[in-house]
Every structure is written in C-alpha cells, then in structure tokens.
C-alpha cells in the first residue's frame, strides 16, 4: 500500500512540478520528445522486471510492455523522420527521466514478491499519469494531425496496458 501510494504521489507531483502543469503551450518537437521518452522509460522498467520478477503473469506483462512500447516508439521515430522534426528535450522529459531513474533504483532494491507488487503498482500509476497527460495536455497541444493521430492511438494502447496492469495487480493480492 505504501509503495503504491508513493508511486501515485510521485506521479502526481511529477505532473504538478513538471512543465505539463504550467500551461505553457508545448511544441510538436517537445511533445514528440515527451511521448518517446515515456515509452523508453517503460521499456527500461520492463527490462528490469524481466530480470527480477518471479511471478509469470508479471513477466508476461513486462514482455508485453517491451514489445508494445518498442513498436509504438518505432512508429514515432518513423513519423518524426517523415515530418522532418527533431524531437526537442524539455523540462517535462527531464522530469520524467529523473523520476524514472529514481524508481529504477528504488525497485532495484526489492526482490521476489515484493518486487513484483511494487513494479506492477508503479506500472498502474505510471500508465495513469501518462494517459492523463496524453489526454489533457499532449493530444490537445499537438498541431500536426499525424502526430495527434499517433498520440491518440498511443493513448488507446496505453489504456489497454493500464487495464492489463490493474488486472495483474488484482491477481497478485
């Protein structure tokens, strides 16, 4: 419970402290960078889980995360190439990366069932945060229709991930 809460609090403070909360209009290159970074973070978390998780459903979930987020990020890279856009680093991406590396270190200290629970709880919280940001900030801010379309597809995929994570979380209890 405390781990789950801390993940949720961290996720919320991320939104509150990051550029996402400042209502500054994000540019397409920044949006592309944030979306791509969010994918990379989840792949890194999943790879850590593949090395540490003991529950088979948790492992399967982590495999799905690697497969899906790599596939979506490949689409994103293809799109920015096609649009001739260079993703631009920004405060939100930096805040996301910082929080993610802290989380990797925190989860790295756990093992067995404790790790499984903490990883899955964080996946639920993380997907909620990213989906909320996509829905409320990134999609409305995106100017290019193709970028907007990819973000909308991403949101549907990640909502599926969130449901999957919630299901695994319920099974672990």
């Amino acid at each position: 419970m405390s781990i789950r809460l801390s993940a949720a609090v961290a996720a919320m403070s991320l939104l509150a402290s990051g550029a996402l909360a400042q209502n500054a209009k994000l540019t397409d290159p920044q949006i592309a960078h944030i979306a791509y970074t969010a994918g990379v973070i989840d792949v890194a978390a999943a790879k850590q889980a593949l090395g540490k998780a003991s529950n088979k459903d948790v492992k399967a979930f982590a495999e799905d995360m690697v497969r899906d987020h790599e596939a979506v990020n490949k689409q994103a890279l293809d799109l920015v190439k096609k649009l001739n856009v260079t993703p631009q680093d920004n405060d939100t991406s930096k805040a996301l990366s910082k929080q993610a590396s802290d989380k990797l270190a925190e989860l790295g200290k756990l093992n067995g069932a404790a790790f499984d629970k903490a990883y899955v709880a964080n996946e639920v919280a993380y997907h909620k945060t990213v989906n909320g940001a996509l829905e409320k900030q990134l999609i409305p801010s995106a100017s290019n229709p193709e970028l907007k379309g990819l973000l909308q597809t991403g949101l549907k995929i990640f909502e599926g991930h969130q449901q999957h994570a919630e299901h695994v979380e319920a099974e672990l209890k």
Partner: protein
Amino acid sequence: MLPRRHFVIAVTLALATPAVPAQAATIQISMENLVISPAATSAKVGDTVEWVNKDVLEHSATARNGDFDVTLPPKKTGTVVLTKPGTVDYYCRFHPNMKAVLTVAP
C-alpha cells in the same frame, strides 16, 4: 430479350440454391487499437475466420479451450477454418483484456 434471360438465370439460381450445401463463408474480424470487433461473431462449421490486425502491435487470437491459437504480427492477417460447433471464448495472449466470443453453429 435481355430481361427475360436474366429472369431465367435468376429462377435457375433460386431453384438450384436449396440443393447445394451452404457455401462456406469467410468472416473478417478486426483488431484495432486493442479492440476486437465485433466482440461477438456467429459462424458455421466450415467457415473461415480471418482476423485482421490493424495495429502496429503483435496480437493473437487464442481460444480458451485450446481450439486455436493464431499469432497475428503487426498489420497482418491470420485465419482459422472452423471444424466443430460450439461457443469459443478467445483473447489476445499479449493483451489479455482483448476478449471476444465466437459462436459456431453446426
């Protein structure tokens, strides 16, 4: 002249149809944005089900009773010929919240 010939063909077809066994159909089911659509499909033994994966993600159509397990790479299709009647729940192995049901009539 022409209308009459069409009439003859139509009558011939109408008369012939009942004698011929029901034609096996190909039924398409799409997988898009992690949704199987339609979620419930009716078919007959002998029909072919074709799943069309429109996502950039890999999916599968996996029967809970083990009848079939079709892997669907991104943007590809996969088929199964239905050989026995019954109701089959199936899902995607990679995205277990993608669920659907196939009702196969004899």
